């Protein structure tokens, strides 16, 4: 199967840290679905998306199995990056490669067997610059990029160079990127996306929410319309906090007139 074809992913249950089977029969992730994974630190959120990324076959600590289009993936799909339908952006924003931005992207383009290398490098850097306020240029060293720049570049890379139908994003909110722009871009590209997140806005804006505890999935929520009013409210609060954060970062004194509007306040 070529990676550009849409793929349906099925997650089959494993066990929690005490060896007890997880509370679901299967989770099917269809093309264009958006999911969030929530739960306390250490509850197994990253392990869940890692299982999907490595296309686990009961060979990880969780014991989960992943099917692609209903069947176990071929070895080729699991092992050759150019055949894999999945891209993972990890929590880590460390880059060890001692390369400049354009060489790094060029090598990744070769790994993914894409063409039009020059244009693709330019477009990827341009898209990354839509996600971050700190300008990235092609001659910058990968190891010298800030956390926000690295995250922005890796997301742009996953969308344009990885070009996979499925994106796994592990706590994207932690690095200084424009998360609304990232979400809208992912939706425009009709990607399937799974966010591991502690961010209320991100968690609420997905179709389904998977709740983790003690290494296992304990709930799969489908809020549908019920949370719509809250999302709008959270979005307003988020904008307010964003604005405040930017002003504090740029050295403003925050006066009385900026006191948080009671009207927005805490959601009812």
């Amino acid at each position, binding site marked *: 199967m070529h990676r550009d074809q849409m793929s349906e992913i099925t997650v089959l249950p494993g066990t929690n840290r005490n060896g007890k089977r997880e509370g679901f029969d299967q989770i099917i992730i269809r093309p264009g679905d958006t999911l969030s994974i929530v739960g306390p630190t250490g509850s197994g959120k990253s392990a869940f998306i890692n299982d999907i990324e490595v296309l686990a076959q009961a060979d990880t600590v969780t014991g989960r199995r992943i099917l692609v289009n209903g069947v176990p993936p071929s070895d080729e799909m699991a092992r050759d990056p150019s055949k894999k339908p999945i*891209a993972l952006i990890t929590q880590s924003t460390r880059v060890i490669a001692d390369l400049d931005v354009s060489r790094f992207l060029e090598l990744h383009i070769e790994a993914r067997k894409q063409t039009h290398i020059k244009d693709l490098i330019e477009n990827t850097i341009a898209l990354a610059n839509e996600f971050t306020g700190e300008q990235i240029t092609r001659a910058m060293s990968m190891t010298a990029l800030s956390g926000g720049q690295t995250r922005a570049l890796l997301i742009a890379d996953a969308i344009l160079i990885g070009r996979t139908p499925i994106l796994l994003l592990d706590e994207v909110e932690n690095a200084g990127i424009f998360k609304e722009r990232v979400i809208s871009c992912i939706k425009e590209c009709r990607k399937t996306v799974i966010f591991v997140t502690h961010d209320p806005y991100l968690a609420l804006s997905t179709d389904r929410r998977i709740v983790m505890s003690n290494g296992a999935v304990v709930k799969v929520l489908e809020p549908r319309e019920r949370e719509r009013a809250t999302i709008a409210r959270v979005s307003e609060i988020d904008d307010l906090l964003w604005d405040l954060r930017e002003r504090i970062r740029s050295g403003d004194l925050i006066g009385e007139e900026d006191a948080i509007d009671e009207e927005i306040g805490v959601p009812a």
Partner: protein
Amino acid sequence: MKLAIIAGPASVGKTAVVRQIIREFRESSNPAYVKIDVVRAFEDEELREEFGIPTRKVYSGDLCPDHAGIMVLQDAISWAQNVGSGLLIIESAGLCLRCTPYTTQSFGIAVLSAVSGSNSPLKMAPMIAQADMAVVTKTDLVSQAEKEVFREYIKEVAPSIDIIETNATQGTGMRYLMKALAAYPDLSDAAQIVLRGSPPLGVCTICVGKKEIGWQHHFGVIRPLEEADNIYRGD
């Protein structure tokens, strides 16, 4: 009996890979383990305690550790056969990146770390090029894009090598290594085993390109598995 030879720089996670292999084969193959090191090594004691399998170590002292490994290999095969092992695992000291300890009739595994810098596969080219499989460890510490870039560098050195990416402490991705090792043939005639590549020039008979394994075939500073002292054997 199968023979697996594991090489790679220091601290890349060779022993973590060995642990996973032992875990997989302990029921079926009674693995035996030999660690080659220069001054001190603890892996043999740790693995013996953890898995209750026969283990040994060899200190190379003044001899090059890869050469010491080659010197003792014939003895080590006999030892492992005598203790009834179906899988002998040899772990190199991981110092010199030029000499490759892989032999004929053995499964050669090069272990690399994903956090060791993009050029590291180029620096250890002979060690990768003559292996059957490259195992990239610590891939949980880098992004997927970076993992794929690292893979390109390995392919530059050895275009057709089998590459697996793993977080070896958890064993992610190791199933491909286990499959390949299980499918690899047993060694057929230990007396016929020779090195796959030519070691660099030097002063002992291994250094100058003699490929036989076993100290009986060499001159200069040699090393049997028993009697840990250096033995000089004429010229």
